[in-house]
């Protein structure tokens, strides 16, 4: 059992507050992704869990044991680094076996575990090579194998795929997800890539300016963003926002159209909808097409509604010309509302 609990963790670097009062519980064997733009504090949080950084305040617990005062080696963790950190002066075999040698395991046990994880990561042919003779993808595999060989309770990954090219990244994404599920370890995975987060995570923690804005399953984060930041950060293209004015109980006017909405007593709300949730209809929002991008699978139309930019993903069979006025209707169960004052979702 390796449930991770992060309790009130804060971190300051001089006058800069990198993390504000972080609380997060990660279940045993869960794959948790920390997602956010660079500088949001996700790597700092990971390094605090690893023990490479000390929290200014707060506690970290792994498997019911408080570990924030322990040195990294006593925390039951293993880590995969962004630049792999595969030791150049050691062979692939010795790299994978590094942690096991440090634990002074007997030779045959080291060999057994190195060979097992190497074949798991498909690098059993490379055991005698040095990292200078490996490609980026192979080094990545060595770094993952080195972590798995430790048979850790928790595996921490800091943007492990960000230095690979796009095709390799997609391949490794699926492979890594499979291998980690197999190994039954709890995983924390830091990335700025939302596709990686969506495709791999059991749960995503979206971070912004040193805070966790939302921690939920990928589909929940996508469908029901808890704040405007999450809505605009997740999804490519991101969610559309339009101003809504109150028009009686539970009714809101958006670009001259009347919509059912929350019964909140606010002078203004943000009406939000994903680009793919818009359909051409007889009645709806009047949108003037500005840019039309045929992307093959679908048609991305950037248009203007009520003076704001608005993106719609339409069927690729449609023909739309710039300047054309479209009538688009949102799928009503997909409409979300945000309070512009707090930027939080309004139910």
């Amino acid at each position, binding site marked *: 059992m390796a449930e991770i609990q992060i309790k009130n963790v804060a971190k300051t670097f001089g006058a800069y507050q990198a993390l504000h009062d972080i609380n997060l519980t990660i279940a045993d064997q869960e794959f948790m992704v920390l997602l956010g733009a660079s500088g949001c504090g996700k790597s700092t949080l990971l390094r605090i869990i*690893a*023990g*490479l950084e000390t929290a200014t305040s707060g506690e970290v617990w792994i498997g019911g044991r408080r570990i924030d005062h322990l*040195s*990294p*080696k006593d925390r039951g*963790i*293993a*880590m995969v*680094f*962004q*630049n792999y*950190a595969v*030791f*150049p*002066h*050691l062979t692939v075999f010795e790299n994978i076996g*590094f*942690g096991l040698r*440090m*634990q002074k395991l007997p030779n045959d046990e080291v060999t057994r575990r190195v060979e097992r994880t190497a074949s798991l990561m498909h690098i059993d042919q490379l055991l005698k*090579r*040095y*990292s*200078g*003779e490996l490609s980026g993808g192979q080094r990545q595999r060595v770094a993952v194998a*080195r972590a798995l060989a*430790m048979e850790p309770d928790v595996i921490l990954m800091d943007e492990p795929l960000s230095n690979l090219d796009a095709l390799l990244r997609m391949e490794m994404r699926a492979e890594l997800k499979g291998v980690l599920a197999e190994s039954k370890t709890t995983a924390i995975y830091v990335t700025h890539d939302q596709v990686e987060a969506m495709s791999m995570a059991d749960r995503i923690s979206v971070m912004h300016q040193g805070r966790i804005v939302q921690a939920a399953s990928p589909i929940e984060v996508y469908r029901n963003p808890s704040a405007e930041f999450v809505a605009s950060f997740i999804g490519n293209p991101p969610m559309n926002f339009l101003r809504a004015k109150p028009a009686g109980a539970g009714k809101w006017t958006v670009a001259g159209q009347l919509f059912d909405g929350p019964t909140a007593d606010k002078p203004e709300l943000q009406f939000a909808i994903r680009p793919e949730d818009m359909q051409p209809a007889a009645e709806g929002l009047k949108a003037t097409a500005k840019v039309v991008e045929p992307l093959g699978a679908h048609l991305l139309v950037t248009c203007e509604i009520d003076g704001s930019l608005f993106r719609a993903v339409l069927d690729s069979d449609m023909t739309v010309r710039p300047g054309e006025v479209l009538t688009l209707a949102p799928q009503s169960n997909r409409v979300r509302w945000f309070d512009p004052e707090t930027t939080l979702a309004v139910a």
Partner: protein
Amino acid sequence: MNARILPYVLILPVTLFLCVFFLYPFVLVAKQAFSTGACFTMENFREVTTYWKFPISMRNTLLLAAAVVPIQLALSLLMATMVTRMQKGRDLVLYIWTIPLGISDLAAGLIWLAIFEQSGFLNTMMNGLGVVDKPVNFLSYQHPGVVFLAIALAEIWRATAIMLVILVAGIGLIPKEYYEAAEVFGASPWKRFLRITLPMLRPSLQTALVLRVILAFEIFAVVAALGGTLFPVLMGETYAYQFDLLNSGAAAAMALIILAISIGFTLIILRVLRVPKGASI
């Protein structure tokens, strides 16, 4: 100009300079060493190696190098590690530690002479503390151990910094992530030094050791100042052949012997500390 020949054209001046002022004199010295008149002979080598002082000076030189270089290596590694860990004042400490580099070896020898001689600081201090009744002549034939110690101390004080500078630069080149990875995978600070710093420092260690060992075999002025004729070394003997005995053939032979030893040790160092193909940072 053609990009393929341009590099060669650019290094031509320095190549010419080296040929005229280093390679040509070297050939002359070699010629001198292998001839007494017009014909080729090993006579000069036979003469210098059979001289009674040759084994002594050879032994002294090697002993000194064997005593001084390992201590300097350990010290410079320790100092470089300490400097690298410093947050503030790192440059200041480095400057202070490297001051001896700016002093000529003879001046360094004279500084230590001022400490060890009969009317020097050490005697004054020991006298003042009542350890000795009258000044002792440390640097005499009665105290060969002290003479050796004084020379070794002066050398360590004078020439550790050259290794330090090279090692500080080398340690700076090792990416921090390797240390973090080693730490996460359970390496203690000492293990990190042994398993990460030392092996990754091999190229710098090579340079530092080769430089230092060659200089150790060329030791002259510090010995001249502190030991005089009490402690003959190879370079001192070479000087004596050239300027006291006016035997330039023998001096040339001695110079070549020192060169051969230097080359031998350089090859050993390069071999022992070589980095396998594909294993560099």
